[in-house]
């Protein structure tokens, strides 16, 4: 398939692996931010082809994984209401709350529907004027513009039965939180290419500068990851820090200006709890006051729902790069994709699911 095969070429991959091997002289810990990158690493077996000096740790860039329990519980409470059609991306359906997930609610009679785009949820609202239609707006800067567009469109159409449960999170504050923690192990970052396609990478310069950490904006195909890893290792070995862009075919310094404009028009930045990590200042998007009639938290009065997290799950430590999924006592035992204790075991982008599915046991 064109534009895919080119980035999965075995000979090129070997060339990059050789370049990495001949560059590395000492151990380095590198974090790939995005769960999509984690899966490519594991799915193609790249992690095992890299020299032993390079330790990959898996970042918080899996929207399903970092969506806090309180948001899941709010979603479940709303989805249980008989007057509601609850719409969500497929990934969120199996994420466990305290005692249920969205698929359970559906099985119990809730009207829970999977959509592929928030604009589909707007269409559901148009087609069902006597029902309340709620869209679970999760994701990073990547999905936020489409969700902002859905709210704008609902407003334009005069829909008063559409709202979103906004659980958006932002990458740069999470990177700062990881680097700023006393127990941080991350020495270099592969930044999430698709987030940067929207936001550009002008936000990362100050972070690289402040923490003396190389950050390489990286794509998602095997060769992207190998090249990004090579660029990061080279910078580390040469003692350089700063921001470089591997993913030039999709990312510019400035990013997508109309999308950023839309985001700032619809959303405002707020403190947000991350599942397993805790609250990170100014790391989430909520709707601006002029769009508050589309805010499901207010509409259904679910703000008070704020349950405590599961104590066994070490998702937070995994997403901060302190531990690997198979360091967890529950991994593959109490916690499996059939009975997940934490979200990283559920999502297609979750690090635990990747380890489990692709057999990184023990």
């Amino acid at each position, binding site marked *: 398939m064109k534009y*895919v095969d080119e980035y999965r070429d075995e000979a090129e991959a070997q060339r990059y692996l050789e370049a990495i091997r001949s560059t590395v002289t000492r151990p380095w810990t590198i974090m790939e931010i995005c769960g999509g990158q984690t899966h490519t690493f594991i799915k193609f077996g790249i992690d095992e082809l890299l020299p032993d000096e390079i330790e990959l740790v898996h970042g918080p860039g899996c929207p399903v994984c970092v969506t806090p329990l309180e948001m899941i519980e709010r979603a479940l409470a709303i989805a249980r209401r008989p007057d509601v059609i609850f719409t969500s991306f497929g990934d969120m359906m199996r994420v466990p709350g305290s005692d249920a997930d969205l698929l359970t609610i559906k099985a119990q009679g809730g009207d829970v529907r999977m959509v592929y785009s928030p604009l589909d949820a707007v269409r559901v609202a148009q087609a069902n004027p006597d029902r309340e239609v709620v869209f679970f707006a999760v994701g990073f800067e990547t999905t936020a513009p489409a969700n902002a567009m859905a709210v704008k469109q609902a407003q334009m159409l005069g829909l008063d039965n559409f709202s979103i449960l906004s659980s958006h999170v932002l990458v740069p504050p999470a990177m700062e939180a990881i680097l700023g923690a006393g127990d941080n192990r991350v020495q270099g970052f592969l930044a999430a290419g698709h987030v940067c396609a929207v936001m550009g990478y002008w936000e990362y310069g100050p972070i690289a500068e402040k923490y003396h950490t190389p950050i390489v904006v990286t794509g998602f195909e095997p060769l992207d990851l190998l090249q990004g890893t090579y660029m990061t290792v080279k910078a580390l070995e040469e003692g350089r820090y700063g921001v470089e862009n591997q993913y030039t075919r999709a990312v510019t310094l400035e990013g997508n200006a109309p999308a950023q404009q839309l985001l700032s028009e619809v959303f405002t930045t707020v403190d947000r709890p991350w599942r397993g990590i805790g609250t990170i200042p100014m790391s989430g998007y909520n709707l601006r006051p002029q769009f508050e009639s589309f805010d499901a938290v207010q509409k259904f009065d679910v703000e008070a729902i704020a349950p405590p997290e599961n104590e066994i799950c070490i998702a937070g430590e995994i997403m901060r790069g302190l531990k690997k999924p198979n360091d967890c006592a529950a991994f593959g035992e109490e916690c499996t994709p*059939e009975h997940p204790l934490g979200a990283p075991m559920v999502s297609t982008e979750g690090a635990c699911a990747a380890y489990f599915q692709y057999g990184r046991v023990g």
Partner: protein
Amino acid sequence: MSDDTPLDVDGLGACPIPISDYPNVLLAHGGGGSLSQMLIEGMFAPTFANDWLNPLHDGAVIEIDAGRMAVSTDSFVISPMFFPGGDIGSLAVHGTVNDVAMCGARPMAITVGMVIEEGLPMEDLWRIVSSIKAAADEAGVAVATGDTKVVDRGKGDGIFINTTGFGMVPDGIDIRPERIAVGDQVIVSGTIADHGIAIMSVREGLEFETALESDSASLGGLVEAILAAGGHDVHVLRDPTRGGLASATNEIAKAAGLGIRLRETAIPMQDQVLAACEILGFDPLYVANEGKLIGIVTSEVADEVLATMRSHPHGADATIIGEVVDDHHGRVLLTSRIGGNRVVDMLSGEQLPRIC
């Protein structure tokens, strides 16, 4: 058996039930009274007519020679009922006939049980029944007996169909996973994941434009050709339906206690299927097929079986995709296109489209 003949669903003509009187299926059509009789005698009996069915007894009496009989049953609940490349009727025949064929048997007869939701358009029922007839003819099986129930509106999804298939296993044929041995070659009969992605492309809420069709087909003829070429050296046949290639190979590896190693680059796939999987975040190894089979045969006969498969219309893209190894017992390993290895595990639950 002539499973090369094209399906002629429309060849059966117009619906025999007077649509003006009964545009939709009513509860009484399954109630055992006169409307039931009308449906059976007007639609089912003349359409499926054969010596086993014609007496319209409580059951069919089938005379067979002594030997081994393969039996398989499957229920079909697919949504939407009509999809590119088939419908629930043809699928209900192919699915069961293929399961019988994967036992090494020649499918001879099926039973058809239908649970119809009240209100199903009579025209839709006729389309489905016509499609069952065409698929059964193509597969060379007779509908030996059947049953119809109608449930209240809202208690079904249009129609559910259960079929049970029968067939005799020829002497000298022994198909079961325990027979695989180190060095055996794993062959797939064509491109994978076509059915699942074709269904996904027309499912409500996920529609995307593609010319892709389900690969739903009867594989009896292909199996016969494989057995003619490989005989006793054919160790396993499996149609990788739900759970896809990954689940089917895992089941075989587990049952046999040996390892299976697959080569990603060898696995045939259509570009548009691959593209849809990339977009949806699906792994094609786990996506359903309805007209493909996996054959595991000794290396001695692998080339001959492969050549035979390729000369059959349902095996034109057949490829050797891996082999049985004396390593990682009970598991399937895949060498990725860039040379890394990973375990291919069983699918947990359903694959769900991703966020980004």
